[in-house]
């Protein structure tokens, strides 16, 4: 339903909060509407009517969702770093286990496709005296 807006084909009506005398109005939202013809069968009769659907973008709600997304991105990044951190009593994960676990943290936070992550196992050779 938002495709016309994203394509710039639908003009948005602005909603402003009435301001006190001498002050500028505060823009709080913008939106548009679509009329949808609907049909239902009631008592064996066909009833038709038109429903108007208003799609409104609240600036405060958009800001809140943006803040929540940033919080989830931060949480997913922290979970990603915690995967390979050593800790007493914590089993070290194998390399093959890390990527699925990282994918789980991304899915859990709902930020799939918003981050790129890379991990590489580096082996070290230790000389042992015989």
């Amino acid at each position: 339903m938002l495709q016309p807006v994203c394509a710039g084909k639908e003009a948005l009506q602005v909603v402003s909060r009435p301001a006190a005398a001498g002050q500028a109005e505060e823009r709080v939202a913008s939106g548009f509407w679509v009329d949808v013809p609907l049909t239902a069968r009631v008592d064996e009769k066909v009833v038709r009517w038109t429903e108007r659907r208003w799609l409104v973008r609240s600036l405060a709600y958009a800001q809140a969702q943006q803040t929540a997304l940033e919080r989830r991105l931060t949480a997913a990044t922290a979970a990603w770093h915690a995967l390979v951190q050593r800790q007493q009593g914590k089993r070290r994960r194998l390399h093959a286990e890390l990527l699925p676990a990282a994918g789980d943290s991304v899915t859990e936070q709902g930020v799939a496709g918003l981050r790129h992550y890379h991990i590489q196992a580096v082996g070290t050779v230790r000389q042992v005296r015989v």
Partner: protein
Amino acid sequence: MSFVRAVRRDEQAIAQRQPAMGWQVYAANGLTLTVPQVVWAYRGPYRSEDDWARLKGRSLGLTPVDLQDEQRLGGLV
């Protein structure tokens, strides 16, 4: 064995998601209302809960119903 790790935000994907944020849908069979009329009608309906909230709020906080001492009641009001 140690791990070299890197994580990077996909700013383009994040920016593409932003236009879809903040949308709400209202629906009715009244075909004469404009967007501002619908928004303000939805934000300002009568709710009985508001009356109780006003009684229990800071300005009319008459909540000490368990008090027996008239002086204390008077002092709190």
